[in-house]
């Protein structure tokens, strides 16, 4: 069993997952070079599926490559680009290579990307996709046709605790948990009180016990990056005082890092949180520093 899955199931220590950078060319060596600085510090790595509606090397190919190179991939599957047949085929296909962690997302709209002319699919929505993938795990396609043997899938999803209607997000987590999600990677957020409210709700309704809640921490190094996220990424709000603090700092990259560190420290103290997910826009070793500063050890580092 993968360390990631074991940690989700046992919660023996806080887990760390990270986003793998988008790949647009090269070969396995390219993947290896991007993987080397991350691998020792994380328990699993997300292979994204056309993030922000931009075409990149596919989720399936990257997940298989990561598995081949010794990492424990989490293959993201979004609903924007493919219909239910293609989504099921990707999950079943990747599982042949040992890619068993799957994370179901609705996905950004095509208008968020650089090819807004594309047809949007959304044949399934996020919660439906979770249930369909969980069906694959149980040994059947959506049609009911048998998979023999069934893939040993470990199904998860995402949720945004920070977006309206906030009180409903807890219920949404419950719906996703009931549909089969064993972990929920949460959207990047800069409002600790909203995270606390969400996680508290999930503890009260029992979701946090059966589904690992994994808040996301974003590593940035400029005030512009924060402004960009606040202005351009729907669903992400960064309070003005926080942006001002980074903007006016003597050492902006260092202050940006400290903000991420504080948010991560806070997240890990919230009862019901199983670990953190790191999105690294710095690529300067800050991921290693963060994991070390938090006193967390990734799977490979501990081995």
């Amino acid at each position, binding site marked *: 069993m993968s360390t990631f899955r074991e940690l989700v199931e046992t919660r023996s220590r806080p887990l760390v997952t990270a986003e793998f950078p988008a790949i647009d060319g090269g070969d396995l060596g390219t993947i290896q070079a991007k993987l080397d600085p991350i691998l020792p510090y994380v328990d699993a790595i997300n292979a994204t599926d056309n993030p922000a509606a931009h075409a990149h090397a596919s989720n399936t190919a990257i997940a298989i490559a990561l598995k081949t190179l010794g990492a424990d991939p989490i293959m993201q599957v979004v609903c924007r680009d493919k219909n239910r047949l293609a989504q099921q085929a990707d999950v079943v296909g990747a599982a042949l290579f040992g890619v068993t962690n799957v994370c179901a997302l*609705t996905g*950004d709209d095509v208008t968020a990307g650089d090819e807004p002319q594309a047809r949007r699919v959304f044949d399934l929505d996020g919660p439906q996709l979770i249930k369909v993938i969980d069906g694959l795990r149980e040994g059947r396609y959506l049609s009911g046709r048998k998979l023999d043997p069934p893939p040993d899938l470990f199904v998860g999803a995402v949720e945004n605790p920070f977006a309206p209607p906030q009180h409903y997000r807890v*219920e949404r987590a419950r719906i996703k948990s009931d549909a089969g999600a064993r972990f929920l990677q949460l959207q990047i957020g800069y409002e600790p009180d909203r995270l606390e409210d969400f996680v508290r709700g999930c503890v009260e309704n029992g979701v946090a016990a059966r589904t690992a809640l994994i808040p996301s921490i974003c590593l940035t190094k400029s005030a512009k990056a924060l402004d960009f996220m606040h202005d351009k990424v729907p669903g992400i709000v960064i309070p003005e005082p926080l942006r001002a603090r980074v903007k006016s700092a003597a050492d902006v990259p260092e202050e940006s890092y400290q903000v991420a560190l504080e948010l991560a420290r806070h997240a890990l103290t919230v009862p019901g949180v199983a670990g953190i997910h790191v999105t690294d826009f710095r690529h300067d070793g800050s991921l290693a520093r963060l994991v070390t500063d938090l006193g967390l050890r990734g799977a490979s580092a501990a081995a």
Partner: protein
Amino acid sequence: MRLLPLLEDTVKGAVWDCRMCGQCVLHSTGWTCPMTCPKTLRNGPCGGVREDGHCEVKPEMRCIWTKAEKRSHHALNPGFWGKHFAELRPPVDNQLHGTASWANLFSGRDHEHPDGWTGLTHDDEPVAPWPGLGEIDDVMALDDGFHVRNAIA
């Protein structure tokens, strides 16, 4: 039967901006049509809802799910509908698009879901599209009428 979809489209199109999915769930969504969501989401809002409750794709439009959530729990919406709000609605059956959901409700057609959704597994579902053909070892042994009977139009 052409008249019924036309009538339904006219009435529901005017009132709810109905998209004629043919499997109406308005009663469970606070009388807010989920097919008017740019992502046609049937199970609640995506993570891109803006801080003001508006849509990620169309900033001028209020997220239909923030509306649906409010309306389904409104005092005027009977509880027997409101309680269906948090149910997991099944994937859209695209074969029903353009048909009258009134007829599909009456016939029960809109409650037919793929076996996998309801948890049924077919043990011996054949894999080949034309299973009979897979069992034929010697095509020359077929009787004279076989190809006529099994012609693929």
